[in-house]
């Protein structure tokens, strides 16, 4: 999944395009955003990949146990929600100085629309090392099929 993320990149951009790409990466996204999209870097981050058999959704939610994350599916929309308390807050707040607090704390909820043709009944979710993987098998008739080319 990670190996082919850059499969359409054609290497270092020529001319001044590199600068435009640099600015695009630095400044907020312009253009058309998905209606359920969230600001870059929101917690938890989500990746979606597909194989011939299924669509797999990876939710990067560190620090949560399997029962602290709620995953639900309705009308082709996958929703992920829960609450994360920070360990830093849990410890007795004795005399101490905080330098950084970058990790997300509090309640979160994210949704994404799934591609058509998934068999919701057979969806499964697994949680390990702070990543929740949701496997949504494709319905039989929608798996990719090779079309044999016959000599005319």
């Amino acid at each position, binding site marked *: 999944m990670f190996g082919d993320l850059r499969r359409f990149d054609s290497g270092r951009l020529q001319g001044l395009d590199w600068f435009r790409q640099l600015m695009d990466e630095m400044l907020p996204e312009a253009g058309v955003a998905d209606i359920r999209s969230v600001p870059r870097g929101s917690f938890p981050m989500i990746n979606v990949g597909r194989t011939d058999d299924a669509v797999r959704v990876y939710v990067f939610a560190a*620090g949560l146990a399997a029962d602290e994350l709620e995953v639900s599916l309705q009308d082709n929309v996958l929703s992920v929600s829960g609450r994360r308390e920070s360990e830093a807050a849990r410890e007795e707040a004795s005399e101490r100085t905080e*330098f950084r607090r970058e990790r997300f704390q509090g309640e979160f909820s994210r949704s994404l629309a799934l591609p058509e043709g998934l068999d919701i009944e057979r969806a499964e979710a697994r949680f390990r090392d702070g990543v929740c993987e949701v496997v949504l098998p494709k319905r039989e008739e929608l798996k990719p099929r090779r079309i044999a080319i016959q000599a005319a």
Partner: protein
Amino acid sequence: MNDVTRDNAPQAPAEREREVETLLPPVDIFEDDNALHLIADMPGVTRESLHIEVDGNVLSLEGDVRLEMPEGLTAIYAEVRAQRYARRFTLSHEIDAEAIQARIDNGVVELVLPRKETHRRRRIEVKAA
């Protein structure tokens, strides 16, 4: 005169080898009387794929994302765009690098960086003149 005006700058290689892309894990850092504490979010990292190193006074925190991914999985949407976390910090000399402790649980890495005995925080009593 052509020699003077000719561009002598080395040409950038057309095929630059792509550097390994890394993610910056978000961290919470706080300090109490005895130690500095660092907590980092590195989901997908296991005990085996986590590497913590102190070189001189630089603390390096690195971890590879280990997901069980089936063959032929292609991305259709990706917010996490690299498979490796890396972040570095310079430590000050009163940290006892030998005594750093680390723990990882559910993708959260907790580091305790104790201060050397001689450098523990001490209250200085202010006496009335």
